């Protein structure tokens, strides 16, 4: 797979798998991912979706914005329902890809037990978590992945606790493939899905997904904010295969820089971080610097 052609706007298929017009908010990071993700996955897929923005985005009965077979299921059971669909495909002798697509709440909080079970059984599915860092579909409540200090409707003075690192939790199960992605780099997501499709076992893809109404920014800023999260070294794009972590291009190129953009630049773009104190921001910056010091040692040696 190493000599795989990278996806670009020229070779990206013109075929669309969603209809024009859906129920996403304007500036939605998820709608970018969904459109491009389906292009990578192709027609031979079945989706399992728990309550999330995606449930609503796909249309309200009896109208659908998607052209894919979708099984909407209960909040806590995404990975388990996908397991059942996968088992059925095995019985039917079909290679159809089973794709679970859940939000951060559905993955890191209520759905983590089912996900952990599916990981341990190494089910042959792709599990995608689009992480907009709070319960956005219900109106911005804190989730396990809401960053420390982040304002939500249930953390009116900022979240006290640090966020869960879901890819690390997943990595502790040693699955076949882990990748992180960003809604601001949809073609990187496309590449990683193409790769994931060829791997058997559980493939986990975690995507940082900016959400203008939830993060407090203009709709036009979605892609810029996602890029800034990567450029300041806060959110990193990488893959883990056979236990080996490899930074993807947008993050890997930062290794050459001796100093990254300050995290303040990222925080200033959103109102959700306005309750952070100078000390909290300094501490956040220090954690990022330490992480990158580690990365430079880890990756420079190779």
């Amino acid at each position, binding site marked *: 797979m190493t000599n795989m052609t990278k996806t670009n706007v020229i070779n990206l298929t013109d075929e669309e798998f969603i209809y024009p017009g859906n129920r996403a908010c304007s500036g939605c990071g998820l709608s970018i991912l969904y459109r491009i993700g389906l292009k990578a996955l192709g*027609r*031979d*897929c*079945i989706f*399992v979706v728990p309550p999330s923005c995606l*449930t*609503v985005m*796909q*249309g*309200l*009965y*009896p*109208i*659908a914005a*998607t*052209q*894919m*077979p*979708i*099984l*909407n*299921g*209960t909040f*806590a*059971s995404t*990975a*388990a*329902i*996908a*397991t*059942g*669909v*996968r*088992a*059925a*495909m*095995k*019985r*039917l002798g079909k290679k*159809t890809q089973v794709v679970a697509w859940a939000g951060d709440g559905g993955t890191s909080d209520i759905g983590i*037990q*089912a996900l*952990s*079970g599916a990981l*341990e*059984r190494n089910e042959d599915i792709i599990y995608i978590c689009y992480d907009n860092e709070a319960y956005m579909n219900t109106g911005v409540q804190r989730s396990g992945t809401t960053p420390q200090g982040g304002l939500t409707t249930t953390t009116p003075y900022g979240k006290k606790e640090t966020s869960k690192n879901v890819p690390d939790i997943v990595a502790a199960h040693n699955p076949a493939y882990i990748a992180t992605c960003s809604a601001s780099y949809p073609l990187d997501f496309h590449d990683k899905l193409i790769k994931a499709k060829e791997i058997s076992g559980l493939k986990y893809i975690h995507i940082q997904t900016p959400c203008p109404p939830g993060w407090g920014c203009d709709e036009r800023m979605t892609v810029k904010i996602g890029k800034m999260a990567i450029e300041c070294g806060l959110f990193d794009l990488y893959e883990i295969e056979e236990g080996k972590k490899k930074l993807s291009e947008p993050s890997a190129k930062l290794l050459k820089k001796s100093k990254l953009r300050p995290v303040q630049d990222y925080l200033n773009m959103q109102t959700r971080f306005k309750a952070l104190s100078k000390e909290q921001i300094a501490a956040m910056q220090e954690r990022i610097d330490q992480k990158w010091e580690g990365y430079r040692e880890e990756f420079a040696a190779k």
Partner: protein
Amino acid sequence: MSKKLIDSGNAAAAMAVQLAAAEVIAAYPITPQTPLTEKLSELIAAGEMDAEYVAVESEHSALAVCIGAASAGVRPFTATSSNGLLYMSEQLHWAAGGRLPMVMCVVNRGIGAPWSVWNDHQDAISQRDTGWIQIFAKDHQEIVDMTLKAFRLAELVHIPVMVNYDGYYLSHTYMPFELPEAAEVRAFLPDYDYKHTLSPEHPESLNTVTLPDARNDINGVKQGSYMDIRHNLHQEMCLAMDVWEEIDADFQQRFGRGGAPILDPYCCDDAEFVVVAMGSIANQFRDVVDRLRQDDGLKIGVLALQMYRPFPIARIAEALQSFKGVMVCEKGLSYGNQGALYADLKSALYPYPARPRLHNFITGLGGREIRTDDLYLALKTACLQDDLTTPVQNDTPQWIGLQL
């Protein structure tokens, strides 16, 4: 050739599921159900059953796997008990609302707290409004026959079916039963054929968000919404009683057993009194009734209720028209009210001209021993009771077997 054997109720259920050719088995261990799914995993591992066994991490996920498999066009099976059933509760509603044909054995057990691993019916009773069909077996043969019939019912009416049998009394005791031949079962139970399967060739979005009102689809045709969809479930569940009788008649013709799929009467023809019960205790009552007839000359019978949901309102009300007194004995209740079966039965009788005197007995909770002597005394007292009791006294459940 059919096979006669002596084995446990759990083994009987497992062999029925094997005969029914379920293809995806998902289960989580819980007492007293565990030996059933252990047996299935053994059969699959030994190559004697061709199915996928998914060892899930919870009951919630067990039913999730069944939901996924059934939605994708494959026949699933799971089993549970007690708190496991309650942990599935959300998924029970989902499977029924999604109109997914599937069968689950519930090996009935009391619900914590405090913990009890022993038998009563509170688990199934507490899930009576989930939209699942609920049937109750009295013995091992019925576990086998009902399980096979349940698969056919679920797949004909697109409603999931719960086959209930008593923990320990049936699950762990050994009794003789007959297993039909696989080829004959295949003829009785054709392949799973679900019309709304997940398929890339014909993509559908299943269980989509609905709005309160009916809406037009893209062709301008008005489609019912949540309330209409749920109304369909209710209507078709009520009609499932007739389908269940037809299935039983066909089963009887093929295998020679059956004939009482909803109400199973014993010594009722000349009876003035009747005891109504579900599950194995209905068989225990046959001994009690024999003794009351022999020793006390009381004309009393037993009416075993085999199907609790849909509730056979008209059938039971009509069956009870000729009795002077009806004793409803159950192993569960609606706390703060009465036995759930008693309340259902009472409401079924209301529109009918004859309303026999009713008694409600609660017994056997958390495996408390149900002594035949106690049942004998309770029924005898109820039969001989004069008419001077107040309505309140009459309508208050009596507990049999309390020790404090």
